[in-house]
């Protein structure tokens, strides 16, 4: 994007800010607009629909020690112009009411609930219910407020949630412990026979209080390791995203070699994650042999990950200002050899997996997410790309070393499980090519910059394209540790899309469809099958009429 074009765009946002009587400022790729809470709905509509921006997330911040207010930051993303638009509003602590924008921006549903749970912000004109915290958590304690210590543990009376058992409705709990999920999450599927008519979600079993921990016990450099443990599959993404946010806020120089090494590690993580997903998808379809072979190929990726970083997962090489481990010639040679082998073997395996008759029949035209719904919900990553949304942070807002490499962004329009499968398969080959390019152009020099100071109360927003989509980290710097650290994992935006995908599908396809967004619940934070018509009866009815409805 040329500079005059950029000035035009920034001017446009300035006009929008001024027309709603807000203040406007920008640094690098981040625009900060502060508006009165009454103007929030209008400005959100203008930015989300007229300016065609995606909604990334919203962040509630307790700023009472600073100015006595609770603040809410809505982060929008103008991917076409490579900009992050932050809209800030404030509200009094005594009566923390902020208008909800959920009806205008459906993607903002969850983050509003989260701000309600953790900070006690009340949103007008919407239903508020517990999302993140367990239902037995005391009502008036908001853990992210600054007056609550991070290690505060309430005396809770825990009891299992039991759905009433009546003769008319039968309850099938798929989850929280379900063999297809490997993570404790809970979906409620309302079924007619084996056809799903509605879905409810109860997640956040993995809410561990990471954000609060990052603001209290840990220091700036320790958070790299904490962030890595947000998710064990795409942990490095979080570590890089966090440190980039701090680097942006504090304007810290990162050596070029370090940026290349970060990119290489990120792509290795994508490779292992996609191979893992293809294996799990095959397993869910009952094709265990495909699962085993896919993971066999993945194992060599795990070996090079260990070689380059010292750990198979949770690499632990990222620090603010660079990386801890360097790559030498021997390692490069080993990595390139492994990549050749993986590429060849993977190509053979994919041809076989896609020729298994049941697999081809079951992944095509199931779990369809139409483009309009995808846009409305601001879905990210392979899910968006399979529904025809051409968005990839690596290309739109380049970070680390992605500006130095050429790669294609696979986009498919059909929005079904097959499209999501294909996107991931294509991305495996792209990742292999990216690693090769990065390794051959690896610049010389140091890998770590230790000399920096982090000023207080600066805002940094950083984006990283994780294997599951864009990962957003928002940091307000503080003394020795961030004042506020917010993580928006990719699955967070994709789970609401499941509701659309699962409606009209058969029960048998539900696990695959859930898996097709590659959910990472530990990043993001249960399935009950309830048949309102009594499923003992309805399952026995209409035996042969259970094809997946395509709207």
């Amino acid at each position, binding site marked *: 994007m040329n500079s005059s074009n950029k000035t035009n765009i920034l001017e446009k946002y300035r006009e929008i800010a001024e027309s709603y009587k807000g203040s406007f400022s920008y640094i690098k790729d981040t625009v900060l607009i502060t508006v009165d809470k009454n103007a929030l709905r209008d400005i959100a509509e203008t930015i989300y629909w007229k300016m065609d921006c995606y909604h990334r997330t919203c962040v509630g911040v307790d700023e009472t020690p600073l100015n006595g207010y609770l603040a809410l930051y809505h982060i929008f993303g103008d991917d076409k112009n490579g900009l992050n638009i932050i809209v800030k509003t404030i509200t009094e602590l005594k009566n923390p009411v902020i208008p909800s924008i959920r009806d205008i921006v459906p993607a903002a549903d969850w983050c509003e609930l989260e701000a309600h749970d953790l900070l006690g912000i009340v949103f007008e004109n919407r239903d508020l219910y517990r999302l993140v915290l367990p239902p037995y958590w005391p009502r008036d304690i908001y853990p992210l407020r600054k007056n609550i210590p991070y290690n505060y543990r309430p005396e809770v009376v825990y009891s299992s949630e039991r759905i009433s058992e009546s003769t008319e409705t039968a309850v099938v709990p798929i989850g929280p412990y379900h063999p297809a999920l490997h993570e404790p999450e809970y979906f409620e599927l309302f079924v007619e026979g084996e056809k799903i008519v509605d879905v409810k979600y109860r997640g956040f079993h993995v809410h561990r209080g990471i954000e609060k921990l990052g603001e209290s016990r840990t220091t700036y450099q320790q958070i790299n390791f904490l962030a890595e443990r947000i998710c064990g599959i795409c942990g490095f993404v979080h570590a890089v995203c966090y440190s980039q946010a701090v680097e942006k806020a504090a304007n810290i120089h990162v050596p070029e070699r370090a940026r290349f090494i970060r990119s290489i590690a990120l792509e290795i993580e994508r490779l292992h994650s996609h191979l893992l997903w293809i294996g799990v998808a095959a397993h*869910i379809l009952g094709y265990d042999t495909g699962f085993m072979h896919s993971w066999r190929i993945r194992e060599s990726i795990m070996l090079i990950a260990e070689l380059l970083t010292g750990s198979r997962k949770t690499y632990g090489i990222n620090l603010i200002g660079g990386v801890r481990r360097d790559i030498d010639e021997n390692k490069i040679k080993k990595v390139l050899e492994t990549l050749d082998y993986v590429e060849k073997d993977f190509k053979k395996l994919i041809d076989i997996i896609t020729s298994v*008759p049941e697999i081809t029949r079951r992944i095509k035209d199931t779990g369809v997410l139409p483009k309009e719904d995808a846009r409305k919900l601001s879905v990210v990553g392979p899910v968006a790309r399979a529904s025809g949304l051409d968005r990839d942070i690596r290309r739109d807002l380049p970070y680390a070393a992605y500006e130095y490499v050429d790669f294609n962004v696979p986009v498919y329009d059909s929005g079904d499980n097959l499209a999501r499968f294909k996107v991931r398969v294509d991305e495996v080959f792209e990742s292999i090519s990216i690693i090769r390019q990065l390794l051959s152009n690896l610049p010389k020099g140091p890998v770590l910059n230790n000399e920096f100071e982090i000023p207080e109360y600066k805002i940094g927003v950083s984006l990283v394209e994780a294997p599951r989509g864009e990962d957003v980290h928002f940091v307000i710097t503080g003394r020795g540790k961030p004042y506020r650290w917010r993580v928006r994992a990719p699955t967070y935006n994709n789970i609401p899309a499941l509701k659309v995908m699962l409606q009209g599908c058969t*029960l048998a396809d539900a696990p695959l469809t859930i898996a097709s967004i590659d959910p990472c619940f530990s990043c993001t934070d249960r399935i009950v099958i309830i048949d309102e018509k009594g499923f003992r009866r309805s399952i026995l009815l209409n035996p042969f009429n259970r094809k997946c409805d395509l709207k």
Partner: protein
Amino acid sequence: MFSVIIPILVSVALFLPTLMDGVERKIKARIQSRIGPPILQSWFDIFKLMSKEFYIPVNSLHTVTLLLMYLALQPFVLIYLITSVIHPLTDYDLAITISIYIIIQALFISIPFTIPNPFSIIGASREIMLVIVNELFLIISISLYILYSGLTSFTQTRIVSFTLHTILILLVLFINSYVSSGRLPFDIAEAEPELASGLMIELSGPLLGLLILCLHLKRFFVKLLPVILLTKLFIENNIILLMVSIIVTIIVWILYSVLSAILARSRVDLAPITLLKIYILLVILSVISYVLGI
């Protein structure tokens, strides 16, 4: 002589299925490029389950009653089949075996309906879908086999002629046995990733162990039956026929395990329709060729 051979063959038939399950796991492991469990692993599993706490799910008197009936009848039908091949028990052993088998199937399907767990009910309703198609064509094809050969008992010394219509009907019987053995792509009732092992979900300890043992016996029975009907084409001596049949069953078991390792699971709306199409086609072809005298 029968008093020696029958007990030996019966004990072989009771021991072999679980062993073959271990072999199957080993074969699967080989296709998946790994070592796999020891061959006796399935037997270890059953002994282990027997040594566990005896647990009966709450409010499940019906379940236990039905389960115990199933556990008694499944070995019985296998023993009946083996005995009647060597020594006729009645003049209509073939029909009686099939009838008992179908009763057992009905009993087996009714067990999960008594367990108040939605997964077992979904699993059972899926199994019903499959069983309706499968058992229907089991009856049709056995009736046709009896019609073609005139055999009503295994010991009748009539050599069945090696004709196209017999072969087609045997093909139906083999497909039938593959489906009844609950292997991929037809294990939709137990579909682990979807239904968390479906109808067995609430059972544990010795009851589960016995159920698994009986499921192995069922797998053996459903393969042995079409194999006997096939070997009847070539062998006259009953004892040799049975021994050969057991060996052929082992080979068939191995083939089936290879096949199930390279296929994926079907869906409840796809599997019965696909099966129905194949069955109807084969049965019609068989009847036509019988009428034409091929």
